[in-house]
């Protein structure tokens, strides 16, 4: 037993485990923020009375929700950076970090959009009609009446999207981010294959610790903020 525990000591001494998790947290934070903004705009498009905007929203969601994340991430390096020569930063690691953030954001924005739309479906039609009846046009009605209620109904699915994003941030390795957890995992297995159980346990427990609070928080929030009708 103490022998097993010492294996963790060895791993944490030779590798920057916490630093790797920190990279995934940063990836999640920035990608989540961008995905939230883009997802909101897409949701507005999808519920808007303008057919062409609604079409754009639907098309975006259909394309990116159905494309494997790995393919989007590889495209961010090989396509966006390699072929299109679009560079976010001169610093190599920084460049790949932000390409990965954008790739993650593009993909998860589709899920954010669908979460918000499911929230919109919890808002009775009468709310929108009452808003229009006092003279609010589409955007003010959406901003002041529909979306605030929709968000409260969307907290649980948004939380699920965030949990997926935390775990999917490991796919950043496919976009050339070399300092995050899945790359570290690979290195550990390569150089310390005898510690295989300790290695897997480290990452499994690490992600459980990251994800559980998100789940608890969204459950509490969605219960506390639920709109009473």
């Amino acid at each position, binding site marked *: 037993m103490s022998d097993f525990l010492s294996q963790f000591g060895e791993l944490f001494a030779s590798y920057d485990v916490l630093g790797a998790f920190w990279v995934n947290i940063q990836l999640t934070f920035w990608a989540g923020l961008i995905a939230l903004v883009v997802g909101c705009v897409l949701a507005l498009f999808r519920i808007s009375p303008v057919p062409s905007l609604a079409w754009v929203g639907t098309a975006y969601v259909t394309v990116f929700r159905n494309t494997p994340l790995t393919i989007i991430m590889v495209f961010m390096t090989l396509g966006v950076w390699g072929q299109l020569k679009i560079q976010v930063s001169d610093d190599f690691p920084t460049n790949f970090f932000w390409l990965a953030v954008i790739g993650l954001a593009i993909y998860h924005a589709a899920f954010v959009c669908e979460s918000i739309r499911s929230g919109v479906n919890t808002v009775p039609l009468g709310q929108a009609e009452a808003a229009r*009846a*006092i003279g609010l046009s589409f955007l003010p009605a959406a901003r002041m009446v529909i979306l605030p209620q929709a968000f409260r109904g969307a907290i649980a699915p948004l939380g699920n999207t965030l949990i997926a994003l935390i775990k999917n941030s490991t796919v950043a390795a496919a976009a050339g981010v070399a300092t995050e957890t899945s790359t570290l995992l690979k290195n550990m297995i390569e150089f310390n294959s005898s510690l295989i159980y300790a290695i897997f346990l480290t990452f499994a427990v690490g992600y459980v610790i990251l994800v559980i609070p998100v789940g608890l928080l969204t459950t509490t929030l969605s219960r506390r903020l639920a709109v009473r009708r």
Partner: protein
Amino acid sequence: MADASPPRPSPDGPEAPRQVAGAALVSLRDVQKHFGDLHVLRDIDLTVDHGEVLVVIGPSGSGKSTLCRAINRLETIDSGTIEVDGEPLPEEGRALARLRSDVGMVFQSFNLFAHKTVLDNVTLGPIKVRGLSRSAARAEAMGLLERVGVANQAGKLPAQLSGGQQQRVAIARALAMHPKVMLFDEPTSALDPEMINEVLDVMVQLAKEGMTMIVVTHEMGFARRAADRVVFMADGQIVEEASPEEFFTNPRSDRAKDFLSKILTH
């Protein structure tokens, strides 16, 4: 919690009708509307004058709600014209939003903004649509809530109020926009019987103060007390138009006689 005190009349009632009584404020000409194969509005010709109170009555499915909703274009029509204060209903957009702000609407299911307090429900339109300052909007809203008898509920959320209180808040919300005309679509049919009168009293008061009103309701008491004219609809058509007294005591059409005999036996 229930607050059944009768609404108090307020010194600053709604503005007097802006034009001479007797001029058409709402007019519908040859309005047609289908839902698929269903012809819900047929050849509707109707005018409502400044200060007039019109009651629309008729069996379920006869198109009363559709008529009401068409007047502020929550429902579009296939053909014909609808004018409010001499202006044909505009297409969806800024002009339509402006027109809707001049037409108050009270729904059967209240439709108060569920995430906002009673006070914020009433001030939202004046602040965001009319551009009033927050303090001015609040002062006026409190006056209106006072008038409909729910001022002591101003800080609560709609779900904490009884149905009758919610509907009176909905009336205050509509009044806060200083509408030219108010539409009521069965405002008391979702209410428990003991709450119906507190809402009807507010409406009668409004009628007395000269508000132009189109009211879909089966409350004959209200029609007798407040209506200038009753319109009877069946199958999307206006079948009969008369004064309340004449309509209820001496209906001419068989449809109206049949309908009245059914609601009178309740």
